[in-house]
């Protein structure tokens, strides 16, 4: 038997002939469309794929994308970035977080700037590294600023489980795990975006299962296709959406069936359930307060909850974006990055004014990097 190689996970899904064939099929099928398609790709990973592979160039003009809120860094309000900075400034502390979170500007500073001042701030490759760092620094308060949608939440839960098992007592968690369905509902409730189809997240759905989108077609009469992140995946998903439209259907379908099931990873779901519960409300950057749209640690783990333990140093006032930044409008699907006055001028990946320019999954960053040729 041939061993599966890493390239097998992507090479076929980037095959030029397959992409061309799908583009041809979509172009043919869209001729029958009654109204233009406004597809929201909920997840920033899909925004990235669409821009990086130039997929929009292969599609007819009656298909447009609305870039959704599924970028964990982009939706983080400034006051919570200020939390991270305040936590990093605690004497004898080590602040841990993931990826681009390091670069997002808060109200006055960013973690990268604070790190340059000498505070111990580290971007992890794997959340599990938090355990090792806590064990190696028993005299330090190690604080994990946990971010991400349903995809990364199980990793945080796994760190919690291992921490309890190993008896680690110097590790704290600032939980910013957010949920896809409430955010989508909030955007649709707003009613302004005129979205008539969804591309459902890939990795989120591996964990949650596609069941979390089942209510969408019923509520909004929109097709939902859960799609993989490769270009062939996205093209095939678009074709599935167009076909649904032409057949007057609004169903939830799974294109990413090599990884996503209806029920998802139930073991991971149970582990999350054990340590976390829905938070009463969470303020999303640009979208505002959404009830039950994020998670927090359960009462039993309050001793590890950085938001509780260090409550007295954490700012509580909401902080709005710079008045020229339209990240909020973009996250709601009401504008495109190049509609913004400061896009590419005052706001660039090196000097981001808004969070959508920071993360590689942010719509502004993807537009800036790959452009529209």
């Amino acid at each position, binding site marked *: 038997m041939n061993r599966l190689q890493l390239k097998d996970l992507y090479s076929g899904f980037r095959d030029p002939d397959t992409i061309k064939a799908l*583009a041809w099929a979509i172009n043919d099928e869209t001729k029958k469309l009654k109204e233009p398609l406004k597809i929201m790709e909920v997840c920033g990973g899909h925004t990235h794929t669409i821009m990086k592979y130039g997929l929009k*160039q292969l599609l007819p003009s009656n298909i447009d994308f609305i870039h959704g809120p599924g970028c964990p860094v982009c939706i983080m309000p400034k006051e919570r970035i200020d939390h991270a900075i305040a936590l990093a400034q605690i004497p004898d502390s080590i602040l841990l977080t993931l*990826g681009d979170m390091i670069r997002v500007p808060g109200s006055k500073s960013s973690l990268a700037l604070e790190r340059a001042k000498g505070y111990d701030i580290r971007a992890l490759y794997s959340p599990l590294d938090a355990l090792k760092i806590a064990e190696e620094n028993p005299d330090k308060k190690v604080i994990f600023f946990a971010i991400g949608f349903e995809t990364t939440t199980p990793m945080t839960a796994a760190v919690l489980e291992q921490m309890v098992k190993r008896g680690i007592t110097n590790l704290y968690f600032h939980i910013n795990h957010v949920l896809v369905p409430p955010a989508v509902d909030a955007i649709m409730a707003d009613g302004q975006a005129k979205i008539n189809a969804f591309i459902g997240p890939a990795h989120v759905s591996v964990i949650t299962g596609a069941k979390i989108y089942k209510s969408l077609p019923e509520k909004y009469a929109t097709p939902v296709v859960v799609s993989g992140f490769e270009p062939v995946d996205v093209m095939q998903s678009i074709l599935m959406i167009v076909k649904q439209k032409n057949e007057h259907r609004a169903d939830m379908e799974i294109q990413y069936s090599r990884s996503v099931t209806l029920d998802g990873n139930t073991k991971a779901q149970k582990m999350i359930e054990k340590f976390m519960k829905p938070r009463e409300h969470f303020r999303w950057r640009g979208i505002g307060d959404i009830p039950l749209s994020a998670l927090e640690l359960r009462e039993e783990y309050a001793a590890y909850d950085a938001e509780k333990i260090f409550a007295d140093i954490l700012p509580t006032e909401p902080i709005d974006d710079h008045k020229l930044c339209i990240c909020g409008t973009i996250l709601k699907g009401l504008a495109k990055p190049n509609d913004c006055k400061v896009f590419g001028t005052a706001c660039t990946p090196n000097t981001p004014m808004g969070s959508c320019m920071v993360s590689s999954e942010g719509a502004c960053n993807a537009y800036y990097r790959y452009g529209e040729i």
Partner: protein
Amino acid sequence: MKQIQLSHGGGGEETNSLIHDLFYRYFGNDILIAAEDAAVLEVKNKIAFTTDSFTVSPIFFNGGNIGKLAISGTVNDLAMMGAKPLYLSSAFMIEEGFSFDELETIVKTMAEELKHSGAKIVCGDTKVVPKGAVDQIFINTSGIGEIEKEGISANNLHEGDVIIVSGDVGRHGAAILMEREGLGITGDIQSDCATLWPAVQALIDSNITISALRDATRGGLSAVLNEWAGQSKVCLEIEEASVPVDEAVQGICELFGFEAFDFANEGTFIIAVPQHHAMLAIQALQDIDVTSNATIIGRVTMKKEGKVILHSLYGSSRYLDLPKGELLPRIC
């Protein structure tokens, strides 16, 4: 274990013995062992002069070490200006307690790497600093080379020029990443770290007109192409699929959300030549070991001034931008 102590940098007996037993032993040449306050050099033609400091972590990596980098890095900078590397300085900043054996390995590697270009180390300096003042060892090398081919410049690309890459891209960055982050992934990604003068000499000997030449170090292929497009006010159109990337390097990129085009190289360069010299250049490069996989990746046009455009095999295109900030792995 024998260790480097502060006294080794104190200027007295210990310093002397370090210089004689280690540096002279491996680097020894007439100019160096004359042991004057400065090296006296004879150079007849126009010279190129460059300097670079090396601070890699880890200092030993798959495919090389900091010493190999310190030599090839400076030698390559000279080569990229069409200059034959002749004389180098080498200054060491060593953290107290550093292993003598490791220092010897590094120095030995430097001596071996010098053989590929024939350059000599003609002056040097050693400082030993207290624990924590530097991370193990830093090396600075400066170099002088005699210009053998004039007119190579990042400002010199013209419409119609062909862009060639000397080998696959991203291996040094990927190799360092694998070791540095302790990712727990096993794989055999070797840094491409190598001296490039023999390849440049082959191009010069073949009388090839070189519009521009640059090694794709930090910032990788993306940085070089963007610098050229900007400085020469042209558009570089690249066929994405023709840029060679090692499968394992691509694998690392897939796992962490990086682009091989943004990864550093230490033995790979990009060259722009007029179209009628393209095949000649490829032949000259393919005859040299380190550039045997040289291949054409694109051409210079005027489509969009100052921009690099990548074309896919399925009819779409996008900009290739300069890499921004530190490389951070994607979140999910």
